[in-house]
């Protein structure tokens, strides 16, 4: 990378110092001078023209010299680029399994734009897709079979209407929350979805109300002294907190109890509750996650995570491709990658079960089974070990019958 940068800045300098145009100008100048001389004194024409020949020629020579220099600079830069990307060609798969799913990708992009809050771009994008569909109905995807385009159209409609509305309201709430410290839209949303949130075990509504209470205590919108804030907070507690008492008795007691210390809350055991600097960010993040989860979506953009994971995985996959090509081997297990690709820990979402006996990952067809002793192996291994009779667990001395083993869900 350093080499590339160095070569490029050299190239840039050379371009800026280029004499090409100056030399053209000097050729023009000598032509002009000759013309003037001949116009003034036609008898000296042949002598003037002879000397003109030389000077124009030398101008062209120096133009070519400067061009040559630029050329060598370009070539050096080419070489440095080649070196940087040597052994790292882009994967040359003819069929990446994605090109035929153009509309699925477009849908994912539209959703990504919506969840990033880029509504204007998303609107343009969707209208351009629709436009192209009407102009070239058959030619959508490369070798497009025309029968799929009709059904895929329906999928495309999904993000354009319902989801778009949802994300628009999400962004409105988030904006109010982050920019104006206005929790009311968020609280309202969490009330509307109270049942769904409760089923998830989410305490979003309480968190929001608690922050509202703290915010009121600190003076609310006008941010003045704590005397009026104290009253407003208590009033709020009286109105709202009774709903939470059955579930969050302790927390509510803390919040209200803290009032006894006012105005010297900072020195009280409750100080941390009231002076949490990251509270607003935490709540915003929490809200986004809950909102997306209720829609069955992950909190972070899947497209972002997948593309990043892809960039991390690519070097390994490319190396593999090269090795396989040089050894002329083929990977036989088609539905599993042949190498392990280490990703950062936040990219692990599911638990993974690899059978300690067969070293295979559990699937729906080959699920993890727990023996009475509590050890887990894959179903196929269980069958192979037990052969229908009692057998000893491969990890502890206890014996059991295969039919005593139970399927577990990770």
């Amino acid at each position, binding site marked *: 990378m350093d080499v*590339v*940068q160095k070569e490029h*800045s050299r190239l840039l300098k050379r*371009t800026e110092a280029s004499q*090409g*145009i100056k030399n053209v100008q000097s*050729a*023009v100048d000598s*032509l002009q001078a000759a*013309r003037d001389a*001949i116009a003034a004194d*036609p008898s000296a024409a*042949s002598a003037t*023209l002879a000397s*003109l020949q030389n000077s*124009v020629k030398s101008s*062209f020579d120096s133009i070519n010299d400067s*061009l040559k220099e630029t050329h060598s600079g*370009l070539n050096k830069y*080419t070489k440095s680029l080649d070196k940087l*990307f040597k052994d790292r060609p882009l994967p040359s*798969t003819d069929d990446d399994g994605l090109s035929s*799913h153009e509309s699925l*990708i477009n849908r*994912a992009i539209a959703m*990504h734009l919506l969840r990033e809050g880029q509504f204007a771009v998303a609107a343009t994008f969707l209208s351009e897709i629709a436009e*192209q569909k009407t102009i*070239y109905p058959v030619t959508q995807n490369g070798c497009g079979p025309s029968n799929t385009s009709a059904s895929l159209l329906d999928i495309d409609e999904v993000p354009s209407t319902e989801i778009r509305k949802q994300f628009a309201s999400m962004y409105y709430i988030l904006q109010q929350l982050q920019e104006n410290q206005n929790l009311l839209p968020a609280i309202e949303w969490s009330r509307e979805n109270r049942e769904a949130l409760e089923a998830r*075990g989410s*305490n979003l509504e309480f968190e929001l109300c608690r922050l509202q209470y703290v915010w009121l205590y600190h003076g609310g919108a006008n941010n003045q002294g704590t005397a009026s804030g104290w009253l407003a907070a208590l009033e709020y507690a009286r109105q709202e907190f009774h709903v939470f008492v*059955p579930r*969050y008795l302790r927390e509510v007691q803390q919040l209200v109890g803290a009032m006894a210390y006012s105005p010297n809350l900072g020195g009280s055991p409750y100080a941390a509750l009231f002076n949490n600097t990251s509270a607003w960010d935490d709540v915003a993040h929490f809200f986004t*996650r809950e909102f997306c*989860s209720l829609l*069955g*979506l*992950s909190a972070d953009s899947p497209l972002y995570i*997948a593309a*990043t*994971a892809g*960039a*991390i995985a690519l*070097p390994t996959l490319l190396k593999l491709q090269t090795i396989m090509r040089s050894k002329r081997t083929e990977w036989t297990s*088609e539905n599993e*990658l042949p*190498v392990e690709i280490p990703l950062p*820990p936040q990219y692990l*979402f*599911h*638990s*993974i079960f*690899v059978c*300690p006996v067969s070293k295979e*990952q*559990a699937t*729906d067809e080959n699920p993890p089974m*727990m023996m009475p002793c*509590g050890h887990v192996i894959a179903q196929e291994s269980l069958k192979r070990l037990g052969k229908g009779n009692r057998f000893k667990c491969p990890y502890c001395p206890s014996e059991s019958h295969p039919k005593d083993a139970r399927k*577990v*869900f990770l």
Partner: protein
Amino acid sequence: MAAELTSTKLNPESHIILDQPLLRLPHELARRNFKTVQRAVEREKEYIIPAIKETAAASLSNTQTPDQTLAALDAMISRMQGLKRKMESLQEEEKKIHNQSRKRIQHLETLHKIPSLADVKYDQWSRVRLDRLLVDHMLRSGYSESAKQLAQDRGVEELVDLGVFTQCQRVVDSLRRGETKEALQWCGENKAALKKSQHNLEFELRLQQYIEMVRTQDKSKKIEAIIHAKKYLIPNHQSQNSEIMRAAGLLVFTQDTRAEPYKSLFALDRWRVLAQLFIQTHHELLSLPSQPLLHIALSAGLSALKTPLCHSAYTSSSSNSQSTSTSVCPICSTELNELARKMPYAHHSKSYVESDPIVLPNGRVYGKQRLMEISRKMGSVGPGKVKDPTTGEVFHESEMKKVYIM
């Protein structure tokens, strides 16, 4: 292979595989620009030097009046001034390209200052990359307006190639409308580079023009077609002989013929094929990958993230949308789920489960700590009880059983 399960190591040199076109494309443009300058200079040189010589000779032998000499000189001056103007505009272009390259190199350079994949800065960098990939995909699919808007919104205009792709798209659109003019003009501009190309785009375009003339079934048009073929098709007889024969045969058919290969020559679908061929040739010339980079990144990423659980018939205990303590896996999320269905899943050689796993009587495995915490938060279960966050069933704490996963 005992690779570790997770890693946050960042190797900037190998991490920029996807970013090759980022530097290659402007460089290719710079080279093209340079060649144009070179050609212009060469052309003027070949005109001016002999012209001066001629004028000098003429004036020496007195076959020319002084006025004629002056006129010749004036012509030379105006040509040289033309060259100067041309070079000036090309130099402006060159500077623009170089500045763009510089910004791109700087962008890649910042990656070297990021210590690990877990760093916040990497997150930002990667988001810029995603924006770039999205713009690239949009441009390639012909959604130029969206691409422009996105690039402006995110401030990545210097890192994407709006101009190149918009130009390409214009030609593609014209081909799809059934016009060859712009494509042929492009061929003219890139004549030298096209000689190395394995696709004979220009021949195919000329052939299409010929087909359109024959299609009319108008007598004078057909004669025109034959003249056209003599001029543009026959010179290629060494490489494209069979096509030329077929084209000749076409003269006796009408466009509703069912005889192959004439039927497919008349097919309107040929315009789409031409557009495809143009894109292919165009990308090849500028060393652009034939696929959108987003596809390459996604197909690798989907596999790296996918687990057998992502398309399982059973809800996963460790990542689902029913509980607030887990985040939804991106592959399970609606956006990508269908797309990932045919992808292979990631390889793992070790199990990875929450710490201190227990199993409930319904067979669901959870980390003990997490389960207790969720149950406490859900509130609606009494003391000593736990609630399965996936199914909603309530069990007594004593029913939790330790499970050993190796």
